[in-house]
């Protein structure tokens, strides 16, 4: 996995549970180092080991851990850049959902080696959408649930999300019920970071 992904997992643990927790996980996963470098690549097994150790350390299922990670990526001030890039997707939550179809291509323009899952969003019926997610990293769909939940808050939308499990092909399916597009005001967003000095 790309260092960015590993680094995200590390920063999530450090910012949410403290440096001690991260150090324990790094030690138990037998990394042999304390910090992932964002611009290096690591064998996939390392990422899986870290996820497994982290979930055990925090006494929660890996799925929950990944969902919390997804929420963190959008909502924590330390990783504000990710939230901003996702907000480039569209002016409302529906636009954002459809922009996920292009996320892989967009990310690869920036970082060709980054393993972004292939996401496909379809409109099923009024206010109901279906996201399929295929990724080299099993469980990425759970992280997407966290990302979408936090993005819904960001846009001020009220949504109900449900991870439907795995297809035989390894794809994860998530259904999205958009109950109200403008439930709250949401957070403001400007394309230019210079104007959008909300923080």
């Amino acid at each position, binding site marked *: 996995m790309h260092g960015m992904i590993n680094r995200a997992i590390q920063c999530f643990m450090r910012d949410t549970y403290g440096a001690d927790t991260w150090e324990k996980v790094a030690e138990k996963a037998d990394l042999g180092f304390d910090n992932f470098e964002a611009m290096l690549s690591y064998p996939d097994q390392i990422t899986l080991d870290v996820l497994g150790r982290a979930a055990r350390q925090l006494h929660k299922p890996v799925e929950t851990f990944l969902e919390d990670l997804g929420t963190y990526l959008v909502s924590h001030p330390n990783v504000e850049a990710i939230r901003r890039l996702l907000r480039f997707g569209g002016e409302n939550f529906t636009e954002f959902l459809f922009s996920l179809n292009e996320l892989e*291509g967009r990310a690869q*323009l920036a970082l060709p080696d980054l393993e972004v899952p292939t996401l496909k969003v379809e409109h099923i019926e009024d206010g109901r959408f279906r996201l399929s997610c295929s990724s080299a990293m099993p469980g990425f769909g759970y992280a997407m649930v966290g990302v979408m939940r936090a993005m819904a808050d960001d846009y001020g939308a009220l949504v109900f999300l449900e991870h439907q499990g795995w297809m035989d092909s390894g794809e994860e399916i998530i259904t999205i019920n958009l109950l109200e597009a403008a439930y709250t005001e949401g957070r403001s967003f400007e394309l230019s970071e210079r104007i959008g000095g909300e923080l």
Partner: protein
Amino acid sequence: MTVVRPVTFDAAPFLAFMPMSLVFADSGVILSIGPTLAKLRPAEEMIGKHVTEVFTVRDDGRGQGNGPIPLDTKLYLKFREGVTTRLKGMAASIPGTGVNILNLSFGISIVDAVADYRLTAGDFAHTDLAIEMLYLVEAKSAVMEETKQLNARLQGAKVAAEEQAFTDTLTGLKNRRAMDHVLERMLRTNVPFALMHLDLDYFKSVNDTLGHAAGDTVLQAVAKILMEETRSDDLVARVGGDEFILIYNRFTDHTRLVQTAQRIISRLEVPVPYQDTFCKISGSIGITTTDYYKVPTADGMIHDADLALYSSKYEGRAQATLFDPAVHHDNAVAYDASQDKR
């Protein structure tokens, strides 16, 4: 009463303005295409065909109108045949003419499209940001490549520096720091292992009579033997002038450990040639294994291997002794190691 007027719409200025656009009749039939679009597919493959024959069109269910494709909304298109090339677009009707215009753009497929269709700067509208986008992608890739190389160099330097910090420069064996590190990790992960403490015999007299250069030659020969008597996941560390600690990963068979130690000693006793003479040394060994302890600790094991080593010395050197809790903890420190340095 409705009057059906003939189509008198002149598309030329629109197509010059938007070289990636096409004009289609209300029926969906393509009437004319812009010059850049003509580079993607020959005009005869498009003109006269229905828009949806040429492209798959998706609008995520948000479009308006009952025409062949939704109007006034963001569209995602792909060619049905050949290179699919994902396109973004928007269609609008031109009032009173019975024709519609569909303007297209590459979106994220721009980088591939420029290569696939050999496009040039002249193929994009002057107001299009495509060239700036391509410029940015190229510049970013160049910088990224440099960063990658820098990362690789720094990573290599870091590994080398760490390696040096853990290596005994004379023999190339690991040093005490490295051993502490490995020992701690093995204890943490509950791996069974054996710890051997080797102290060279008669080394000091080689140093005293033949000089330090001879001593260094001997140490290098010893290092070579110890490396040959261990496997890749074992560890050999030089922890003092003529003291070595060997850690055997997942190897705790007492009989075989003693045999290994005896073989090491007999190999150490093979004289080492130095200039026109030979250096003769031997070694004493103390051994302990994790299975002696409920909770093995680094200090405890090193201490017990030492006690066993002292027994070897006491028994007349050139021996290997296995730690025995009954014997060694009763007669603790029966032997004064300082007297051996002769």
